[in-house]
């Protein structure tokens, strides 16, 4: 069981985030570059001291400035798989895995025998004598994982474990990593900026943006109900923020009103829309059964047989200066031609009420 409550200022980063990982659980710390994900991991590993807060594993306090406690990295019950893997270049795969055992005072012959056993278990017996530079990306990743696990830590930390791989081997190695992660019974915390890694490898997500946790939940919850533009974009959803203006009516910052099928859960709400559910028109659509709001085309981007149209809301009336929602509509190339869409074109966006998922912000 890992509990980390971290407050830290480091350069431009102002970090204030809490993460808990139970035994047997894989939690992904997901966020854009510079959000502070890796710093959280470094704090847990003891490579960086926190300014305030508390880090504990299985009830043992590792860092607590208020109590004057700081356990050095070498004495923490952790295993880390680093970005780029960081295998010691002059040591063989076997000696890399044996390193942690040697550091714990295991005699050389014993450490090497144990390391050979670990490598055999992950199917790497044949590369035991190879230097890291002779290993493939996937092999190097497995050696790094095995090296981290050989010291039998209580918590396993992984920092962008797949980032060093090219796109082709990534898919394969990701599946392999999932299998090998399953063999470890302790708490596992994975830092990544790749939503696919997070969705495939983790049970739970903690989303961190500019040093703050913006959302946490199971992968399915987060994917269905994003709370920030960052997450919405990652999972390919549009996110509109608004306030309640009736039992089924949401007012956006632009003044436009949307009708949703479900009753509103609160006053401040978020509305998620799939890009495919957004249709575009050049004139205000007739009939009031559908949601419609004015927008401007910002950019067009071809994606296979579809075109993604970037839009911003056009303000109605006097809402100048309010932050207006950007959304994406996905349409066919034929409609782009038919509607004559180009950056700057004024359009009307419409969505059926049943296609709007509304939830409390």
């Amino acid at each position, binding site marked *: 069981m890992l509990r980390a409550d971290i407050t830290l200022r480091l350069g431009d980063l102002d970090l204030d985030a809490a993460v808990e990982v139970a035994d047997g659980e894989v939690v992904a710390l997901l966020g854009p570059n510079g959000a502070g994900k890796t710093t959280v991991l470094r704090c847990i*590993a003891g490579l960086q001291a926190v300014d305030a807060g508390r880090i504990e594993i299985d009830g043992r306090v590792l860092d607590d400035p208020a109590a004057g406690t700081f356990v050095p990295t070498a004495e923490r019950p952790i295993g880390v798989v680093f970005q780029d893997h*960081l295998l010691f270049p002059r040591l063989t795969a076997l000696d890399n895995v044996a*390193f942690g055992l040697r550091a714990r005072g295991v005699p050389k012959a014993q450490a090497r025998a144990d390391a050979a056993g670990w490598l055999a278990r992950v199917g790497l017996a044949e590369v035991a004598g190879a230097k890291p530079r002779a290993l493939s990306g996937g092999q190097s990743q497995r050696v790094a994982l095995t090296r981290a696990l050989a010291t039998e830590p209580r918590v396993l930390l992984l920092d962008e474990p797949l980032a060093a791989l090219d796109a082709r081997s990534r898919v394969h190695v990701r599946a392999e990593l999932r299998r090998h992660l399953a063999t470890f019974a302790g708490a596992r915390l994975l830092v990544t900026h790749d939503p696919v890694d997070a969705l495939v490898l983790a049970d739970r997500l903690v989303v961190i943006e500019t040093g703050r946790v913006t959302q946490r939940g199971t992968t399915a919850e987060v994917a269905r109900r994003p709370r920030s533009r960052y997450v919405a974009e990652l999972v390919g959803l549009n996110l509109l923020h608004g306030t309640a203006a009736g039992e089924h009516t949401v007012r956006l910052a632009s003044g436009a009103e949307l009708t949703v099928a479900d009753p509103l859960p609160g006053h401040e709400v978020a509305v998620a829309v799939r890009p495919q559910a957004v249709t575009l028109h050049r004139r205000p659509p007739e009939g009031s059964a559908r949601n419609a709001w004015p927008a401007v085309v910002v950019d067009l981007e071809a994606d296979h047989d579809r075109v993604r149209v970037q839009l911003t809301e056009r303000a109605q009336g006097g809402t100048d200066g309010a932050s207006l929602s950007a959304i994406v509509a996905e349409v066919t190339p034929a409609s782009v031609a038919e509607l004559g869409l180009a950056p700057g074109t004024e359009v009307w966006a419409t969505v059926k009420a049943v296609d709007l998922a509304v939830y409390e912000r």
Partner: protein
Amino acid sequence: MTAGHGARRPRASGRPPWALVPPAALTLGFLVLPFVALLQRAPWSSLRELLSAPLVTEALRLSLVSALAATGLSLVGGVPLAWMLARTDFPGRSLVRGLVLLPMVLPPVVGGAALLFAFGRRGLVGGPVYDGTGFLLPFSLWGVIAANTFVALPFLVVTVEAGLRSADRRYEDAAATLGAGRWMIFRQVTLPMVLPSIVAGAVLCWARALGEFGATVTFAGNLQGRTQTMPLAVFLALESDRGAAIALSLVLVAVSLAVLVPLRDRWLAA
């Protein structure tokens, strides 16, 4: 670094702009011409006889022993100092770094004189040591080694410090997460990582020590067979026996080339 099959192909970037060729050729000529002149004036017929004279063999032995010993001492003391300068933060660190570099820019004669004031018979440290034990550093082989170390050590410290600063410290982090203590990290991770810098620094240090003149002659004197190294012997011979001086010089050139050329590609080019 790209794959091997591309290495032999001529590349556009390997062809020099024409403006660089004349100054490059001129500089090379300036560097090489003195050695050509040395070869041209060499007393080839009596060379064998000159080189086997005790003056030459003793100076050569003293030079090699003292330069090697100075390199060894510099390694033992300089690597820890470089580590302190690169990795720790203490008040007055830039002043300390300046002091370490001082022997590099100071005229060696001044260094030799300073060494005398510190370790001479009536020196700051040398006086009490002499009174207590009768040991005297100046005018002995130990004095030669001390003078060489004093002048050559900065070359090692500067090179190793630069290596430590550019080394990827994340490997040290990785070692710490595996449970390694500071000493194990230094021995098994940091040292192998900066080995190329250590070798390069040691070679530069050795080369500087081999050519040392000013500090040595001031601090250790010019006693044939005891403190007279090759540069000192050459200087003395120039006055009396030009043939011997040239012969000695040729030996120095040969020894230096024999060490620098094989090491240059492997360690110094990085």
